[in-house]
């Protein structure tokens, strides 16, 4: 087997030479943000206390019904509000989405050129969400002050401050904004915290003039120590869960949540080959399961990388989209890199699924100096081509390895998604027909119908995967037990030794 691995290593390094990717695998599919229903996307830029928030809208209804109320910490000037191109979200999503990569193995019984498969498409799932509003007219006596009023791009924008939620609610309702029944209770705390309300609706004339057919993202910038995203208002009228993807940029390192745990999504797992046709729904199940397991009140890390244009290191491993360029950063609101090209830009992609029961507070963040790179990556391996069989000695031992590996991949798949399909079990024994002799340790396995393992469900203390300990696809997980044993031995020895010395 050692021999095989060496040859495999060589084959892969040749493929690396042909393609300029640093990672020796091929990107085949990605699980992009469009997979999740009821999702919103936000670009968050933070440098010191300077914050830029770009809110992507996936509004599906009639644009004249579109309205948005966002609590903001300060009254924004017109120059603090911009409308940006929707493309930025698509580019950032494509670049940072969880990825599937593939390896090819070679049949060393008959060496021939490896033919590579084409890249595969991933499925799209449409999404829907809506917010409603009508016309706005000028009125007073609601204890509401219109701090500022602008038209930016196709949007009419108001900045309101209020002294009581009742008045604000009536003002909004009387001006045609449909406010959820329970919103009043949520408006009050924002008013008391001295927050202002950024109220947006579409100016149909401007939209017609500009020739836009879809709503473009709105960007706001301000200087305030508060580093948060208000969720509560959006949840006021919704009982279900909503997904949000946050693309965060900071000069130092990862952005993490400070009032909910930031958890890494399982990564670097070897999964069955058949996943390649359905990677999108596979990742969705991985996310669903991780969400359940971690107690439904976590923020998930899907990507974290240094994306500084001038930085020489590899930007992705492998790339599923073009790395963001200077123009993207300018559009996202990164303002420090243009002034000082020696500075750096760190990109964090967070995915949060929230609902009222598990997210009572708005999300708060901090920008940490954590520069550890992370990406959600899953690996499929194409078996060696059959050609005339695997009759040589290498071929026979390869088939045993293949069978065992595929069993681990299959179990990994079960553990990651939490929903197994026993019908797919034939995947493991697909190549057994070329074996001259069945190895004795398989006998039991074949005779007794393989049973789906019982999987830990909600709030399980067992991390990630039940099979990862065997398949060794995650080094960190595997070495964990060693570290723990070391720590326990160390501490027990210390207590024992310290006791004796003092007697």
């Amino acid at each position: 087997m050692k021999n095989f691995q060496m040859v495999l290593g060589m084959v892969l390094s040749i493929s690396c030479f042909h393609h300029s990717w640093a990672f020796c695998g091929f990107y085949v599919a990605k699980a992009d943000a469009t997979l999740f229903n009821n999702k919103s996307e936000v670009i968050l830029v933070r440098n010191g206390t300077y914050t830029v928030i770009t809110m992507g809208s996936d509004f599906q209804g009639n644009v004249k019904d579109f309205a948005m109320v966002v609590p903001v910490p300060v009254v924004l000037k017109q120059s603090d509000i911009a409308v940006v191109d929707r493309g930025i979200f698509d580019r950032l999503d494509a670049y940072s989405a969880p990825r599937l990569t593939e390896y090819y193995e070679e049949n060393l019984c008959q060496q021939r050129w490896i033919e590579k498969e084409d890249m595969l498409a991933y499925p799209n799932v449409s999404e829907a969400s809506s917010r409603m509003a009508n016309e706005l007219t000028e009125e007073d006596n609601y204890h509401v002050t219109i701090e500022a009023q602008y038209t930016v791009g196709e949007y009419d924008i108001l900045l309101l401050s209020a002294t009581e939620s009742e008045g604000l609610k009536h003002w909004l309702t009387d001006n045609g904004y449909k406010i959820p029944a329970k919103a009043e209770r949520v408006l009050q705390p924002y008013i008391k915290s001295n927050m202002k309300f950024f109220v947006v609706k579409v100016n149909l004339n401007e939209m017609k003039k500009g020739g836009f057919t879809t709503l473009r993202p709105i960007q706001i910038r301000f200087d305030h120590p508060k580093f948060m995203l208000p969720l509560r208002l959006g949840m006021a009228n919704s009982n279900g869960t909503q997904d949000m993807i946050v693309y965060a940029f900071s000069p130092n390192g990862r952005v993490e949540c400070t009032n909910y745990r930031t958890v890494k999504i399982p990564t670097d797992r070897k999964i069955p080959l058949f996943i390649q046709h359905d990677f999108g729904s596979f990742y969705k199940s991985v996310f669903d399961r991780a969400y359940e397991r971690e107690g439904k009140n976590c923020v998930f890390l899907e990507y974290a990388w240094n994306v500084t244009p001038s930085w020489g290191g590899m930007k992705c491993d492998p790339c599923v989209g073009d790395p963001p360029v200077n123009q993207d950063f300018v559009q996202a609101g990164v303002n420090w890199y243009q002034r000082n090209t020696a500075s750096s830009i760190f990109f964090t992609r967070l995915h949060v699924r929230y609902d009222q029961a598990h997210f009572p507070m708005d999300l708060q963040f901090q920008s940490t100096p954590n520069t550890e790179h992370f990406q959600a990556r899953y690996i499929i391996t194409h078996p060696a081509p059959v050609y005339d069989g695997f009759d040589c000695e290498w071929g026979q031992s390869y088939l045993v390895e293949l069978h065992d590996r595929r069993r681990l991949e299959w179990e990994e798949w079960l553990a990651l998604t939490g929903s197994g399909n026993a019908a797919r079990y034939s995947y493991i024994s697909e190549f057994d027909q070329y074996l001259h002799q069945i190895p004795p340790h398989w006998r039991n396995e074949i005779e007794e119908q393989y049973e789906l393992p019982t999987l830990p469900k909600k709030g399980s203390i067992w991390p990630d995967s039940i099979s990862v300990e065997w398949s060794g696809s995650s080094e960190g997980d595997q070495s964990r037990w060693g570290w723990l044993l070391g720590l326990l031995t160390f501490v027990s020895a210390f207590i024992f030794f310290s006791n004796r010395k003092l007697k």
Partner: protein
Amino acid sequence: MPILSKIQSDARYIQIIGQTTFLCWGILFLGWQEVAGTMFIALASCLVMQGIAIFLGWAPLHSLRSALITGLGLSLLLRVNDPLLMMAAATLAISQKFLLRWKGYHFWNPANFAIAVLVYCSQDAWVSPAQWGQEISIMVLIFFLGVIILKQIHRWDTALFYMTTLALLVVIRFQWYLGWDFSVSFHQLTTGSFWLYSLFMITDPMSTPQHKVARRIWAMALAGLTFYLQFFMFIPTAAVWALFVMTPWVPLINVLNKEKMFSWIK
């Protein structure tokens, strides 16, 4: 049971056992893989530094236990990009105990000092206040171990006054003044970080006032400062900075009260 009576002879043993459990918990269930690599550096560096002090005759042999607690505390709280920084943290933590001294008292809790200095001065160290999440089981564990230790060293009042004051302030602000529902206050008061900090960090008898009344007032002032920094200055790691500001006053309070220094050994 001889081992039990020995463990009871010094509260630091339970503290060591407790912190080791929390560390194991984090690595096993909360995905702190990166901590696994740096924890031995922290532990070994703390012990070596304390060993040097013992060799120089500045500290008794049993003070190695305190050094181990400092090492565990650093592993639990501090996150670094470079393992060398963990070594720096351990060196800072232990050496400040001996270099910055006044009338036999040191000014800061060693781990807290190192964390504050490194997070402020270096570009590669940080604290993740949400790393414990809202898991109820770990909080129960923290609570019971904390209570056992605090009972043994008669310092339960520090934690009680600190936690009650902070809880009251949070409820008054979020529930009563701002009008959020109770889940918001509850969420803030049930983070593992809050419990761990309250029961294991601020209660260090070496850096809290010895006089009972002074200690209680001090704990309440600490809670007030933490509250102000967190909710009015929007600093998520407020507890670290509040303790850093409050502990240097302790030697003065102790000297003014003419209190005897705390001793771990019964």
